[in-house]
């Protein structure tokens, strides 16, 4: 007679159990297989294993026409375990239905397309609906972000010698101080949502994580530039902090994404390119340029995800408008942009204390605020706001830029 599993001298607990398991799985519940082997402990180990696994076991002594062997009957526990399991979507987000519209909290941390055992614990993720978080562009933007990571140690010419007037250096330090607190808000906001996001939306989770890592790097390089020639940083105003606090306190993902990425970081893009252009030294220019490149991706994701959201639910648009109005109302009695940041921007754009240069510097900063306004209006129109709404909402945006 044919023995289904002949373990030879392989011990049952030295890996032999894998062969028996495989044969039982192939046979299926209620079906029997024959097992033989010469390991002295096979009988003992097989008996204990079958008992624990819910299989039944019978030993058949050696006969003239067949060797001594065990008959193991599949008790069906493995099939029972997986009987109510669910497939957590499909791996390839490009396939229709791969990313489900509502992710089960019972899927927990399971990877998309994994088979999840019924009865798995429920996780308290708040963001479980595709419409709230998903963008088809997330995977592409994530790949782009990963490829564009730069090393602060080597990407910035830290050792290039330069010497600035004390006033100009102070202006750069003040700008860096301001950038750091803004980038800190930009790190905290996506980080808070990562912890609330259902991991089913893997690409969005990864993109937000790399976004937070971008901000961590920005904070590092702005800090390092600020302290390059000084022992301490500049001033932080209550008006600036109040503006950023409204971002940190925003509990709704789509609104936070709109205020931070589309309006705030969008505005910041103009600012960073401005700093890069008028930077008085190569280190300042490099940190601003590298940060601006990263921020561009953050803005792109905000727009992509909100565009998709609004295509699926156009009635959400007025809520975004309300959020801008609410934030404006909350901030209307605050000072807005730190006056010393404004002055510092004028000074670096002027390049000297000469009155004619200062006039030019001031004009350039005014031009910057116009550019920021136009950029915001353009992005608002891309989200489907009409011309008048875009003009109005842009004008209500915080004077603190972010």
């Amino acid at each position, binding site marked *: 007679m044919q023995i289904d599993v002949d373990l030879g001298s392989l011990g049952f607990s030295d890996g032999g159990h894998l062969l028996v398991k495989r044969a039982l799985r192939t046979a299926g519940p209620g079906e029997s297989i024959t097992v033989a082997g010469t390991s002295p402990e096979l009988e*003992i180990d097989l008996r204990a294993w079958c008992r624990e696994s*819910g299989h039944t076991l019978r030993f058949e002594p050696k006969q003239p026409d067949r060797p001594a062997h065990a008959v193991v009957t599949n008790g069906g526990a493995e099939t029972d375990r997986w009987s109510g399991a669910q497939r957590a979507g499909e791996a390839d987000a490009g396939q229709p239905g791969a990313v489900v519209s509502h992710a089960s909290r019972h899927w927990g941390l399971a990877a998309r397309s994994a088979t999840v055992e019924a*009865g798995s614990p429920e996780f308290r993720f708040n963001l479980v609906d595709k419409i709230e978080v998903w963008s088809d562009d997330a995977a592409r933007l994530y790949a782009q972000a990963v490829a564009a990571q730069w090393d602060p140690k080597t990407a910035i010419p830290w050792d290039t010698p330069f010497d600035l007037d004390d006033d100009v250096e102070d202006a750069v330090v003040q700008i860096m101080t301001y950038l750091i607190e803004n980038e800190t808000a930009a790190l905290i906001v996506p980080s808070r949502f990562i912890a609330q996001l259902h991991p089913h939306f893997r690409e969005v989770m990864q993109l937000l994580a790399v976004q937070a890592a971008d901000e961590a790097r920005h904070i590092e390089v702005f800090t390092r530039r600020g302290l390059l020639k000084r022992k301490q940083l500049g001033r932080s105003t209550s008006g600036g902090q109040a503006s950023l606090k409204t971002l940190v306190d925003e509990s709704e993902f789509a609104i936070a994404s709109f205020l931070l990425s589309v309006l705030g970081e969008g505005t910041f893009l103009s600012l960073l390119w401005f700093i890069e252009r008028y930077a008085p030294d190569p280190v300042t220019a490099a940190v601003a340029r590298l940060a601006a490149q990263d921020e561009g991706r953050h803005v792109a994701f905000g727009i992509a995800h909100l565009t998709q959201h609004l295509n699926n639910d156009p009635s959400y648009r007025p809520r975004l408008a309300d959020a801008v109005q609410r934030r404006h109302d909350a901030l209307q009695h605050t000072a807005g942009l730190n006056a010393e940041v404004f002055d510092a921007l004028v000074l670096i754009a002027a390049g000297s204390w000469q009155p004619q240069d200062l006039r030019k510097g001031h004009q350039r900063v005014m031009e910057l605020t116009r550019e920021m306004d136009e950029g915001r209006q353009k992005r608002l129109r891309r989200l489907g706001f009409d011309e008048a709404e875009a003009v109005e909402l842009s004008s209500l945006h915080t004077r603190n830029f972010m």
Partner: protein
Amino acid sequence: MATSSALVMGAVAYDPKVVTIWDGFQKYFGARGLAFDYVLFSNYEKQVEAHVLGQIHVAWNSPLAWLEAERVANRLGRRAEAICMRDTDIDLTSVAVVRSESMIRSTGDLKGKTVAVGASDSPQAKLIPLNFLAECGLTPERDFRVLVFDKLVGKHGDHIGGERDAVRALLRGEADAACVLDRNHPAFVREGTIPSGATRILAQTPVFDHCNFTILDDAPGQQIAQFRDLLLSMSYADAEVRPLFDLEGLKRWVPGRTQGYAQLSAALNRFGTIDAFVDNLAPRCK
């Protein structure tokens, strides 16, 4: 008898998971119309006493507790019954293991040696294997020394720690053999307590049974019938049941049987392990 309308079960708290398990069963039974509650004891002797005194209706008993309850009941002219057990309580064996390089080849070679065992009240890691060796002609403490690793006495070896300590003593050379439940030998290899290939099995006891749900002759018949029916209908395919089964170590409940306690009963007769307990409890329960 307990006065509450709920069916009250006793169990021994040998591990914090016991609360999770019986809370889960309480919820399951409650949802199916059986009011059920449980009481935890720190040791089986107290549970048997409470059972015979009518403070609980049913007891989740170790094999030793089953025999304690049965002997006290018999002494009182009453009857104990095992109504249900786990599939994993059926046909267990214990093994005596030695170091691979040991010169000990048969049980007879243990003469004059040291045998490490688990808790003093562990059926599987002390009482049954020592009785088995006695059947082989070796009287404990006369023909070989017994090294006992008492862990949580009163819990009848439910805690695996005594067996683990016995195996460690074997590996350290403080004992020449160690007695453990059959499934624990490969488990100790998997967890790293025993280096792979460091031990071999010297002998295996005949099969015996383990825990059961015990009732006495005054148990509320209808509630017990419902309890037993619900147990037997529980399925491992049910996602609500499966985590409880995984914690309690079973795939299905099976009807109780008592023929698997003969070896342990013989061990108790040979060593007189529970004589004092029975002598002391029975008169107090009249």
